[in-house]
C-alpha cells in the first residue's frame, strides 16, 4: 500500500522569484495524482520539495502505512554524455546493485536488470550507450530504474517527454497496473487528453494550488481557459513585483 502525502504551507522562492506560495494539500494513498499547470508554474519544484531535493518553507509529511517504504523517481531530464561507455544495462545495474560494474559477475543481477528493461520494452537496447538513446528511450530506461525496488511511492516528472505513441500507451497501462496494486503515484503531466485517460486526481499548480479534484471535474474546457488566464495575470503580477 502506498503512502499518503500531506503538504502544509509549502513555499519556495529563488532570490526574487516566488516559485511556490503557501501550498497545502493532502494526496491520498493508493491513487494516481497528476500535477498540471503552465510552464514555470512550479510543478517540478513541488515534486522536488516533496522529495527533499530542494530547501523550502512549510512542511511535507509522507505517511507510510507500514514503516518507511521505497520511493521510485523519474527526473524530468537526465543528461548522459554520448561518448561515455555507460550502457543501458550498466545504468540499471548501477541503481540495482553495489557490486562494482567492473567486478559484477552475478548473473542474477543481470537477469533481474534485463527483466526490468523488458517490462518497458527496452531489453533489445540493453547494450546501447545511454547517450545514444533518443529522449523517449532514455525516459523508458529512467522509468525502468524507478520501478527496480518495487516502490510504494512513484514520483514521475514529465515521464512521457519525447515518447512515441506506443511508449505513451505502454506508460499508461503500467500506471493503471500500479494503481491497481495500491501504489501512490505522483506525476507531472502536460497532455490533457492523456491525463483524462489516466483517471487520476488532478492538482493544478501555478505558484499556488489553483484546483484539485477528479480529472473529469477539473479538466473542463472553461476551467482550462481560466487556468491559462491566471497564468498570464500571475506572470504580470510577478513582473510588477520584481520591478
Amino acid at each position: 500500500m502506498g503512502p499518503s502525502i500531506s503538504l502544509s504551507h509549502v513555499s519556495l522562492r529563488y532570490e526574487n522569484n516566488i516559485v511556490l506560495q503557501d501550498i497545502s494539500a493532502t494526496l491520498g494513498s493508493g491513487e494516481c495524482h497528476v500535477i498540471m499547470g503552465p510552464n514555470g508554474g512550479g510543478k517540478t519544484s513541488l515534486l522536488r520539495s516533496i522529495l527533499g531535493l530542494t530547501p523550502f518553507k512549510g512542511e511535507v509529511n509522507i505517511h507510510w502505512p507500514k514503516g518507511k517504504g521505497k520511493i521510485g523517481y523519474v527526473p524530468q531530464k537526465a543528461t548522459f554524455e554520448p561518448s561515455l561507455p555507460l550502457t543501458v544495462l550498466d545504468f540499471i545495474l548501477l541503481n540495482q546493485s553495489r557490486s562494482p560494474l567492473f567486478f559484477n559477475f552475478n548473473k542474477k543481477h543481470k537477469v533481474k536488470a534485463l527483466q526490468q528493461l523488458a517490462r518497458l520494452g527496452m531489453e533489445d537496447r540493453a547494450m546501447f550507450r545511454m547517450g545514444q538513446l533518443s529522449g523517449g528511450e532514455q525516459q523508458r530506461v529512467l522509468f525502468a530504474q524507478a520501478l527496480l525496488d518495487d516502490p510504494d511511492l512513484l514520483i514521475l516528472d514529465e515521464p512521457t517527454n519525447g515518447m512515441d505513441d506506443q511508449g505513451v500507451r505502454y506508460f499508461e497501462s503500467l500506471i493503471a497496473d500500479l494503481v491497481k496494486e495500491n501504489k501512490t503515484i505522483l506525476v507531472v503531466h502536460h497532455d490533457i487528453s492523456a491525463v483524462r485517460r489516466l483517471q487520476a486526481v488532478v492538482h493544478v499548480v501555478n505558484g499556488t494550488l489553483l484546483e484539485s479534484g477528479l480529472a473529469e471535474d477539473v479538466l473542463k474546457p472553461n476551467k482550462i481557459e481560466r487556468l491559462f488566464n491566471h497564468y498570464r495575470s500571475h506572470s504580470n503580477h510577478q513582473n510588477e513585483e520584481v520591478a
Partner: protein
Amino acid sequence: MDWLRLLANQGAEAGWLSESFAYGFMVNALVAALFVGPLLGGLGTLVIAKRLAFFSEAVGHAALTGIAIGVLLGEPPENPIIGLFCFCMIFALLLHFVRNRTAVPYDTLVGVFLAVALAGGAALLMYVARKINIHMLENVLFGSILTITDFDLLVLGVSCLLIIVGLMFTFNRILLASISPDIAKVRGYNTHFYDYLFVMMITLVTIAAVKIVGAVLVGALLLIPGATARLMTRSMGSFVLLSSLLATLSCLIGTLLPMELKLPIPSGASIILVAASFFLIATVYRIVARK
C-alpha cells in the same frame, strides 16, 4: 622485499631476465608501478565520468607546495610525506568545499586554486633551495625510480589497499552520484559524502604516485589511459578494466624502457609518453575504423 630483489637478481644473473632487474631500485620501481597503475587507470574512468580532469591535475601540482612545506618544517627532503599528504588533502577538500558554496564555475575555481598553490610553492621553494640540492626537485616534478624505498612501497601498498576496498563498495554510488545526483539522493545515498570520498581517493593516489610519475605528470596518468579506453570499449566494466590495464602497462613499460635503452629520461616523462602512444594508436584506429 629483499627476497624479491634477490630473486630478480638471480634471474638477471642466470640470463632469464634483463640486466636491469639486477638493480634493487628497478625492482622497487616495478612493484610501485604495479601498485599505482591499476588504481590510476581505474580512478581515471571516474575522473572522466565526473569531468574532474582539471581537478586531478591541480592536486598533482599542489604536491609541489606540499613538499616544500614539508621540507621547511623539518621533514627529510627525500621523503616529506606528512607535508605532502596534509597540504594536498587540505587543498583538495577546501577546493571541493568552496565549490559547493559558490556560483563560480568549477574550472575557474580550480584555476584559481591551482595558481595560488603554484605561486605558494614557487615562493617556498626559494627557501627550500637553501636547504637541499635543487636537483632533487627534478625528482619531485618528473618522478624518479631511484628514490623509491621500502617505506614508500609500504605506504603505497596501504594506500592502494584502502582505495581498492573503498572502490569495491562505492564505485557504483560514486558514479550514480555524478551521473544523476537527484536519483542518487532519492535512493538515500549521501551524494556529498561520496563526492568527498572520491576527492580523498584522488588525492591519496596522487600522493602515492608522485615519486614514480612526478607531481607535474601524475594528473596525466589519471586521464590518458581512461581517455584511450573510452575510445575502445562499449561498457563501463570493460572501460574500467582496460583503463587499468593500459595505465599499468604504461607504468611498467615507461619504467623499464629508459633503463633498457639507456636513455636519460625521467620515469614520469617516459610513462606518460608510453600512455600517450597508446592514446595515439587508439585514436588512429577509431578514425580508420570509422572510414
